């Protein structure tokens, strides 16, 4: 709990910094805060930030290297046979030592050397804790003192504090970039290796997907086809069905809730629908496979249609239900945010409520609605479990919703968690699929951005 105390101390220090900074600013202003460049609180925040930020940075940085350092010191003092162990063995020995230190159950009989090493470890740890404590406190106090001493009436404390906040905002916004980078990096190498064994053109334009190829090297391949087209077609089909359910239902629900329903109904129904987004997908999977699919099959058969027991329709419909709240809640918010004066404007012209909604409110709320729909579509593309359970895993190139299809994501998951060697083309195919899906959605998003922007220009 050393860490907790330290964090607590730092928090207290920061709070004190705020208080002192603010007080000093007040003192400098000699009672008339108008002579200050910024509000006294900003000086307080400035001192607090100068106190906290460097200390926290160093603390986090230190946390990263602390264990390496301690380990290094302990290892260098280990007696000979242990010290010269290969690295991986050493890792286990260290684990043992740490178990001893933490008074956990240990594996073997603890030899005297180990006990000695554990003692040493404890010692080093103690020193380390002391060191970091001193360091963090010094930095905190130092930073605070510096900031405190620079306080004067002309200092642009607000600008500085806002700059720090802005930097924080900026850093947050780059996380998305790093995530994207991370994703690309974590799939691209494996995808490359896949493309070494399967030509990229076959993959992109092949019409047959049948990964019954060699799972293992000794199990010489049967047929093996890695044409991704059926998967993408399947993804489109299932997502389209889902959107076909979710968009009208979600949008109409949003309209009803925000424009027709009483506040009570709205305040109850909206959160209730939001639960739909949180039901685990396994549950939806069972629902789709065991309730909807037989239902569809039964209806189909009475109509004389051939319906396979796993159908894109069943999976799509249930997926559509799942993403209703994405459309309904986000659209509801967007619609609700349309200024009342626009509604009044339309009503005063004798527009029916529905005409107002269709012609004035929806266009004005469009950016928010599009955001919700895009999110829903994204969710539909990324969903796995329902597809695996209800649409099957057979890659049919078909536009018939009554047939069984599979999607890119479903394949990625089954390929990744299935039983195969990790560098067989089959597993690698998952990475290739991931990469291509990523590229495809990226392209679609770029297009969406421009389309939405163009459309939006009309309404703003």
């Amino acid at each position, binding site marked *: 709990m050393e860490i907790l105390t330290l964090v607590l101390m730092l928090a207290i220090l920061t709070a004190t910094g705020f208080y002192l900074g603010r007080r000093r600013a007040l003192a400098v202003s000699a009672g008339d805060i108008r002579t200050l460049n910024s509000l006294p609180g900003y000086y307080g925040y400035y001192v607090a930030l100068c106190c906290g930020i460097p200390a926290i940075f160093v603390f986090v940085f230190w946390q990263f290297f602390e264990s390496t350092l301690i380990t290094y010191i302990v290892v260098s003092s280990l007696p000979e046979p242990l010290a010269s162990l290969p690295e991986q063995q050493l890792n286990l020995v260290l684990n043992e030592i740490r178990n001893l230190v933490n008074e956990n159950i240990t594996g073997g009989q603890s030899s005297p050397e180990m006990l000695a090493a554990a003692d040493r470890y404890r010692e080093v740890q103690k020193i380390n804790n002391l060191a970091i404590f001193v360091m963090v406190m010094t930095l905190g106090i130092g930073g605070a003192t510096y900031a405190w001493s620079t306080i004067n009436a002309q200092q642009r404390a*607000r600008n500085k504090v*806002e700059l720090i906040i802005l930097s924080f905002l900026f850093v947050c916004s780059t996380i998305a970039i790093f995530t994207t980078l991370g994703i690309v*990096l974590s799939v691209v190498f494996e995808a490359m290796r896949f493309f070494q064994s399967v030509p990229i053109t076959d993959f992109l334009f092949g019409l047959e997907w049948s990964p019954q190829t060699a799972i293992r090297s000794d199990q010489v391949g049967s047929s093996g086809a890695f044409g991704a087209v059926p998967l993408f077609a399947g993804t489109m089909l299932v997502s389209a069905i889902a959107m076909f359910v979710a968009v009208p239902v979600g*949008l109409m629900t949003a309209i009803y809730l925000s424009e027709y329903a009483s506040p009570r109904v709205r305040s109850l129904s909206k959160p*209730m629908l939001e639960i739909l987004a949180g039901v685990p997908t396994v549950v939806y999977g069972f629902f789709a496979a065991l309730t909807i699919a037989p239902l569809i099959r039964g209806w189909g058969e009475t109509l004389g249609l051939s319906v396979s027991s796993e159908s894109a329709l069943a999976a799509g419909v249930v997926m559509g*239900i799942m993403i209703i709240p994405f459309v309904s809640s986000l659209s509801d918010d967007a619609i609700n945010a349309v200024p009342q004066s626009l509604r009044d404007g339309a009503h005063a012209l004798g527009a029916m409520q529905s005409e107002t909604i269709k012609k004035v409110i929806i266009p004005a709320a469009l950016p928010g609605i599009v955001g919700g729909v895009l999110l829903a579509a994204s969710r539909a593309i*990324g969903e796995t479990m329902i597809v695996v359970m209800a649409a099957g895993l057979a890659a049919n190139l078909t536009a018939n919703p009554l047939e069984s299809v599979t999607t890119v994501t479903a394949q990625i998951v089954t390929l*990744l968690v299935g039983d195969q060697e990790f560098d067989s083309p089959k597993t690698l195919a998952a990475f290739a699929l991931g990469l291509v899906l990523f590229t495809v959605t990226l392209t679609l998003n770029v297009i969406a951005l421009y389309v939405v922007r163009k459309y939006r220009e009309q309404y703003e």
Partner: protein
Amino acid sequence: MNKLPSDKPVAIDLVNASLAKRHTSEKLFQRIGLLSLLMGLTFLFIIFFSIISKGYTAFQQTFIQLEIDFTTQLLGTEATSDPEIRSSADYGGLVKKSMREMFPEADGRQEKRLLYELVSSGAAYQLRDMVMDDPALIGQTRQVWVPAGDDVDMFNKGHMKRELPEAQRRLRDMQITWLDRLQAEEKIALKFNTAFFTSGDSREPELAGIRGALMGSLLTLTVTLMLSFPVGVATAVYLEEFASKNRWTDFIEVNINNLAAVPSIVFGLLGLAVFINFMSVPRSAPLVGGLVLTLMTLPTIIIASRAALKSVPPSIREAALGVGASKMQTVLFHVLPLALPGMLTGTIIGMAQALGETAPLLMIGMVAFIVDVPSSVFDPATVLPVQIFLWADSPERAFVERTSAAIMVLLAVLIAMNTLAVMLRKKFERRW
């Protein structure tokens, strides 16, 4: 001017002419809206109904009353003094002895086995815990209610039909006769299933509990919420309010939209590579889970937050800027409170999604059998959806109702989590 008089009667007549049609379409529109709402709610109720009707029985568990003689013969003479011996004593023997005494007619290995199957293997641990708590029990005789085996539980709850031929049910005829006798003696009863809420996972349905997964979910979601909400809102605010609209922000925007479409399992791959392999956070830890789910939830929160910020009328920003507020003050004091409802919607949906997600956790070792209840974000843990996924895949019939019960717990967590956000959202909601 000269046109107006002739137009005058025409105008209102024209209005009236189409009025009926417009009213019909208005009504239709409203009905469709209502229908949509009802449809959504119906789906919800169907799902709720099917879960609850399957799962409510799991909150009760069949118990059998045994007369246990805590004899030193079986426990060992030193058991009173030496905790080591006391803990490793043969408590199973006590249970078996008691069963044999109750049904002395069970004869032969096979029959005895059938007899012992009636009570759960957890009975022995229960006795051990009793003795460990109170060593004075040793040498005494007590009436103890112990959990019945899962098949007995299923039979008692009517999930296993007595009418079926013997070969088609897991309880033999003989076992059923015994159970009937217990019933007659009132030594078998349904009681509240406390273990379901207090223990971690188990392979024995009657001992399996949700606590470990619940704690895992809470820890994971705490990490997720603490990171994704501030970061998501910060990103949205930066992009919407501060960043100049150029290629770079377009790039970020497209990226974020695109991340929303990345299959969740890919986030698992990323988490594995970055957090576990690179930053050496322990595998299966809620911390990693939380981080991965954060990355997954972020796009949802960002997109919703941006939409919310966009819908705040510019006149409000102008008003604040006009009195000399800085952009930051304008955003913090005026725009954020107005955009908060939308941001909370994003958070509600994003967190709901995170709460129900399994696939990415597979990659980071959270789809696992973990009995001990995690107490920190570094302990190995699973989460509720994973527990549901694993139980749904278990062969034992008794897990079916427990799976549904676990889903109920998950939904309860979800509702509890949402309630707060929904209340906050309502508080900040206003029309302008």
